[in-house]
């Protein structure tokens, strides 16, 4: 399948995911920035090893620390909100969304997730805070 300028389109799987992402948009959120990624920028003096990948996102005074562990075709994500607060957590991927709630200290574990690009939306129960969305991120 080609586009208007004769360019090849990406596979349908990718197009379907892009359509799904549009349906799952959350314009009400603050989009978090990726602050660090152990896979691309390992801590000084260390090589990125086969261990879990550590990701830090942040915006508007809230940080979200994630630890992503891959098991074959699935992955687990352990997360921690800083400052700690109970939070609704939504895991978005091409196939839909999972809803979860963190504990009262803002920690959560999501298991057996599909190993595809994902985005998390956290809605912490902090006074005056807006939901925080991470950018879509590939799992590697």
């Amino acid at each position: 399948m080609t586009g208007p300028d004769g360019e090849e389109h990406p596979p349908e799987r990718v197009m379907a995911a892009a359509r799904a992402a549009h349906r799952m948009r959350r314009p009400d959120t603050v989009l978090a920035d990726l602050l660090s990624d152990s896979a691309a920028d390992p801590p000084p003096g260390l090589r990125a090893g086969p261990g879990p990948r550590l990701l830090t996102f942040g915006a508007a005074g809230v940080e979200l620390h994630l630890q992503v562990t891959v098991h074959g075709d699935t992955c687990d994500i352990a997360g921690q909100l800083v400052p700690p607060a109970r939070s609704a957590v939504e895991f978005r991927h091409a196939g839909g969304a999972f809803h979860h709630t963190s504990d009262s200290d803002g920690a959560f574990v999501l298991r057996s997730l599909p190993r595809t690009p994902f985005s998390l939306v956290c809605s912490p129960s902090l006074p005056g805070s807006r939901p925080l969305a991470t950018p879509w991120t590939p799992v590697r």
Partner: protein
Amino acid sequence: MLGLLLCLLCPMYISGTRLAMTETDGGPASGAFGGYRVSPGIAGCAILLGAPVSDQTHGPACVKELVRRAAEGDEEAWDVLLDRYAGRVWGVVRSHPLSFHDAQDITQTVLCNLAENLHRLRDPERIGAWLATVARNECRRHLRASGRTRPLPPGDLDRPDDRTPESAYLVAEQTDRVRTALTRLDRPQSEVVRLALEHPELSRAEVARLAGVAESDVSRVRRRARRRLALLLREDR
């Protein structure tokens, strides 16, 4: 079915329309959760289909309008944007030495982030440039991550260096000649040789996909490229 037809037809007509879309716009989308909405989009496309006016090609104002509508949840506007830009993103990503699977994941990531950022784009008319930059950055980040996991054998660090200035110069000169010859190869030979040089670990199937040749032709292209390189280097001497 109608949606598919429209998404196939729209870019052609939008490329030659004078913004019939503005008039047909509905009110702002319902707030949270993507504001799913269909009817104004269909109306807009119907007008477009009926009025293929012809002097504006991919006009910036038109893109801006599409972005605005898609940001409000209009799925058809989003389909038109995807149809117009997904191929470009895919092209940028495929120009990096990535496996097919990684290229799909990265393209998907970039397009999903566009969806999420529709209402945050500062210059919606420069969406193409924005996408290309984001795609390149995402590829670099990925390559940086996969490149770091290759360790250097510790023995190599202590080996004596027996190079002299003369030998270093000769090696550099030879490298330069080969590099110049490489730039004179045509596609797909140049791609196949470059992949063999920089990513010898890739399988024949991956080389075929990246270079855009049939898998059964890879060896033949490689052989021809070698012959041509030998010829170029002989001529050059």
